[in-house]
């Protein structure tokens, strides 16, 4: 299902279930929306907008009749779903509920100055752990080509060693996983070639950049010097990186298991989703500005909280808001702040997928590189 195309019966049914699962509980929703839901949502939007929109404050949101209408519709649709999770939703209601999801249920919160400044009240647990999250974010960076085109996300799994996806490595080697059905085989052939090239030619090396957004300065960035491993079964790869001072302090610890029943635990991802016009098609333009600062293709670091919705073998299905560019993001347990998975794909409005690392913790690759799960 794509956003803005909710017309058919099946799609409607699917939308209703999807929203019903994502929206806060009745009690939480009552607390959040209070006696004036529209004003409450505008308040959340107003808090978020400056973070998303940089130096500008949003235009007078309260006087934007379209936003007013959207938020009124969102609150009535949410109440409708509170009554029955199979309620029929109009396309406009679906649209409005997407706004609600992005505002309060599954936000993708922009990181600024290494911090996450505009956490909605619905994610109070995120606020309470803000100081830990900011530490974790330091070890997460964008993986760029030498020309600084963003290809995905990578994070320190050990000193001078980054974890990411195979398909992100493929992209760094010029192989598109989206358009080339043989990309995995091609990567096996290309990896040794690029490994040698990156070692021999510093100018050809991809870049690891932990910045909040692209910046002209190279301060703090690392250079990928080689491909240490591409996993044969899972979409998981390790890259050698140099130039990051004291990278041991940036390592994200791995969890031997989630802190509770995997489905009941909250998680968050740190990564660099790319917001494109295609991905936000159908959303009200003012809302796209509010939520993402527009579809300007500038890649910003974001934190996306969510939960697991299924676990099939090593495939963890989650519902955090991710987009292209999130690939390689660590999935972090919100209680222990240890990594439980690595995100690799998703379909908006349905589910996202991550490798459940704790389920493969006896894999030789971890042992070989001295990586421990605690």
């Amino acid at each position, binding site marked *: 299902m794509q956003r803005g195309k909710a017309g058919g019966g099946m799609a409607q049914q699917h939308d209703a279930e999807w929203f019903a699962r994502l929206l806060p509980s009745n009690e939480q929703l009552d607390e959040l929306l209070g*006696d004036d839901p529209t004003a409450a949502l505008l308040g959340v939007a107003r808090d978020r907008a*400056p973070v998303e929109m*940089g*130096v500008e*404050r949003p235009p007078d949101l309260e006087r934007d009749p379209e936003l007013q209408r959207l938020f009124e519709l969102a609150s009535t649709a949410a109440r409708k779903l509170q009554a029955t999770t199979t309620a029929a939703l109009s396309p406009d209601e679906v649209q409005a509920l997407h706004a609600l999801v992005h505002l309060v249920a599954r936000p993708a919160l922009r990181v600024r100055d290494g911090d996450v400044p505009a956490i909605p009240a619905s994610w109070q647990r995120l*606020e*309470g752990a803000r*100081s*830990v999250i900011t530490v974790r974010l330091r070890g997460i960076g964008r993986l760029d080509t030498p020309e600084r085109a963003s290809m995905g996300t990578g994070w320190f799994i050990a000193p001078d060693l980054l974890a990411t996806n195979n398909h992100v490595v493929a992209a760094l080697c010029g192989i598109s996983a989206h358009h080339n059905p043989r990309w995995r085989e091609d990567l096996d052939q290309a990896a040794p070639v690029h490994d040698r090239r990156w070692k021999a030619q510093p100018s050809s090396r991809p870049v690891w950049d932990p910045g909040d957004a692209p910046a002209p300065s190279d301060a703090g960035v690392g250079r990928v010097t080689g491909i240490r491993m591409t996993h044969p079964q899972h979409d998981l790869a390790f890259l050698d990186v140099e130039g990051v001072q004291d990278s041991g302090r940036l390592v994200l610890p791995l969890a031997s298991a989630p802190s509770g029943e995997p489905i009941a635990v909250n998680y968050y991802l740190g990564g660099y989703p790319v917001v494109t016009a295609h991905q936000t098609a159908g959303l009200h333009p003012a809302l796209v500005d509010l939520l993402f*600062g527009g579809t300007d293709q500038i890649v910003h670091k974001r934190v996306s909280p969510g939960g697991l919705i299924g676990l099939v073998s090593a495939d963890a299905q989650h519902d955090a808001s991710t987009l292209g560019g999130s690939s390689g993001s660590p999935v972090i347990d919100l209680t222990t702040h240890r990594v439980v998975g690595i995100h690799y794909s998703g379909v908006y409005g349905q589910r996202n997928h991550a490798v459940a690392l704790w389920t493969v913790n006896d894999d030789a690759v971890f042992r070989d590189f001295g990586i421990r799960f605690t």
Partner: protein
Amino acid sequence: MTDHAIVIGIDDYANADWRLQAAVRDAVAFAKWVTAPDAGRATPGTLTLLLSPAPGRDVDLPFVRATRAAIADTLSDYTLDAKGDGADRLWVFYAGHAVHQAGGGLDAYPVLVPEDVIDLRRYLWDQPLELSKYVPALQLQPPVQQLFFIDACRGIADSDDAVTATTVLHFDIAKSDDVGGRVHARQAAFHATTAGRLANEVGLHGLFSRALLQGLGGLGPTLRDEGGDWVLTFGELARFVAGRVAAAQEDLRTQGRPAPTQVPEPSMFGFAEGATLLRFTPAQVPRARLHLLVEPGDAQELAGASLRVLNSLTGEPEQQQRQGPPLAKGAQWRLLCRQHRVVVDADGFEPWAKLVDLVADTTELATLDPQRVRSGAGAGGLEAAGTRAGDTADADTADADTADAATAEHERGRISARSADPLTLIELFDSTGSRLARGYGSLDHEVRRERPYRLRVTPPGHDPIQRQAYVTSGTEEIDVDGRVMLSPPLVTALTAAHISTIGGRSDASEVFDGWAAASMGAVLAWGAWAARFPDNDHGQRLRSLGVDPIAGATTDRAYVQVLVGDAERRDWLGQIDVAFGPPGAERPRGLRPVLGLPGLAGQWTGAVPDGGAAVVVAGPDLHRTGLPVPAVQGYVAVVIVAAEPGGQIEIHRYLHPVDPTGHGHPGFTDLVRHQELSWRGLEQQQSFLPGEAERLLADEPLDPLSLAIIGYRLVREGRADLLTRAGSPSVIERMLALAPGLPDAHVVAALAQAADTAMLRAAEAGTPLVADGYSALFEAATQRAAATGLPPPTPDRPLIQGSAWTLLDAGHDVATARPPAIAADAISASPWDEQVRAALAATGRISSPGAGGTATGPGAPAPGTTPDVPAPGAAIMATGSAVLVTPDVLATTEQVVGAGQRQAPSGGAPLPPGWAADFGGGRRAALRRVLHHTTASPGVGADTAPRLALVALDAPTGVQGVEFDWTRPRVGARIAVIGHSYRDPRIPVTALEDAFGNVPRGEKFVVPGEIVQVQPGTVRYEAFTTAGMAGGPVVELDSGLVIGIHFGGEFTDGVKYGFAVPMAFLQHELRPLIERLRG
């Protein structure tokens, strides 16, 4: 018995520009809190809820509309009809707009603005709801405890009169007689912000109300264990709320949306700071979970964690809980919501410590560093360093954000700040608003790296300047001297008197060291001080300014000297009325010129009759104001009223000996500035630095007013014993001997010695000059009136109480709401810098062949921006402004030359016929082609900035191109934006009229302002820019150089901000190109 409550919240104002979002929400939250079942406070029956919610907004409590009549009736029920009879407490909460009265202290009560006010000026003139009238009246009414929480001044719409058209108390204190009697109410008030400042609304709540409701709920403030219950005091609530508001503002600053400075101000009348405000049973007191994680994994097996509960006042640990080792899964505690200190130690690792403000479930991460080997005496290792596992007592003595013993070496840094002026006060604050250090002239303090700190710098004679400090490594050296602008006429006058002005400062000193940041008020104060010395003594050049030396003055009489100054020579001087005489019988007095300050200052001198007198001043921007003048034999009471650059009006007061040499004074010292510092220290409630008070008191001789000010400050600090015991004679004795006619001397004596007789003498001496003394005397008089059954002191005419430095305009935060724009033709006749006028001439209006259409394409504003281009569809041809870089090439923003077209022309593309630039005076040229579009990508946070365009004209204009400054602009720099201004739909017409004198119709304006934020691709300033100014130059006023090209703005809370692309950002791309164009 039960409590009563009056709760008022106003969002929906009849004047649409004043509407608020969160005042009703806050009021409803307070109403629900105060009537919470089983809480033992008010009930729905004893609650009066006055609300003005937005139309269509549902409120689930019964309420009455908050009209003027309803609020007045409600308050009168309590002040006139004793409605609170039988109640324990009265709770009053107000959220909405209000106006602070001029001349009040920091904690002055404001004038409430009810929902039905449309014209603020008329309202203030007619029957304003002055809390300063109701609150004192309530002192004689039940119930015995009354608490006021005022979350007001939320971005009130501007009005020149709003801050001056109010009255404050005046009373004839000597008429109170003592005859026995009844108990008066104890009151405590908590204001969201100090007088003259704005309070902020963020998201769903006011900053103040959010913190207040957290505090009242026990979420955060330190509670005192009292017999099993937990007690919240008013003082602790105030400390907590102030800290939370400061932290919230710091958060806003880091988010790139700085809010006007807001400092909550508590005020007490008979209500002790340590008095119980609320009591929580163990079941009621809120708790939260603190989860502590420890890394690296190697440390977890060895680590133990200590939790120290600190007393927030003393910083001393009160309780300790310990967990581990090991701490493989971290440590968890369920704790009272308050401040805790967590310390983690593990063998082989450096200790780790942090202060945690627990208000909700919180997770903290302790990342331990391997221990380094210590040299020398440290060879004993951990034990020698006092950091044995489980023994971290040393760490408890350090401040939270100060780098203490538990801080790893690599986390430590220093902030070293200094000023050229040794009397500049420098203060360092952490992110919670706690002051870590302060000093005069310089400050050096150890801090933690990569944490935000704030420096507040107060040059003598000027308002504080805030700036951020951040240490990434080693020591951060900070030169805190911002340039202080002197007005050009004042510079000219000082130069003529051979008083040098250097770098925007004036070194008016002739014998004493150091720099002086000069304002008009300070220059007059120096002039008056120098006039007290003989011709052959020091201070001759200052005497040449011409302040009256009062020939024939004798030491057995008292004198008054009134000096009125106008730094910008705005014809203000001629419109000021000065009267003098016994209170109530003042007669007009004509001002004589101060010859050395022609057109800038006037003066009047006279003798003060026994029993004291009053000076009354009135004029434009200065409401009729009375200033008490004491009759102190042998002294000249100097009253200075100065209009400073920017329109701020200050009143200074000094007490100079008629003959300083006869008083054994060591000579023409820097006494004036020391007095000024004392006043400001008192006004800002600063405590003395260690040893500072002793040193000042040891300085001989100090004038009696300075001694009194020091006395008030010591009383406030609880150190009054220094006044009565130190020295022989004591300070009190010296002060009373010097000036028995100074009421403040008696009030200080009464406060220091708890002597009623001294207070009675003070009442006989007249009205104190200092706010603290005024309040103390007022309280004493009220108590005596209450005891005797007489009516309490009543206001009968305006009088400025207290502080010497009293802002009489709206203050810096709403400065741009005052007339900020200057028409170009007015500039040409003013002595502005040559380069500013050159930039003015080089700025023109761009017009397109079609009426202004909607900007589209790459040149269109990024989503959410509000470019300063005329509104689409406007019946004008103009699209914006531009500035010449050479006589035939101009620079502007892409959106200006892109307006009205489907797509902005690319580099090299010809423009269609009809595009033109008009520079005035018949200098007009057609736009030929776009030479270049900038390509540099905006940096972090600047992704909405547009590109710039260089456009060739078809013929030279005869006007030279401007000069650019390619260096990074500086926060705090004074700038001016030049451009053609039009009516702007984002800005209320009333605000436009105030700013420009009328709705602008395309005239060229110079709009002064100040840079508030600098980012790689954007510079942000407070300046009243409008549609049509995009593309115009931003000129740094100190250098006269163009530092950026203006492109957009926003109007928020009555303050207008503008944005520019800084030239520094485009230096590599544009500078070579422009130099090539210039040949």
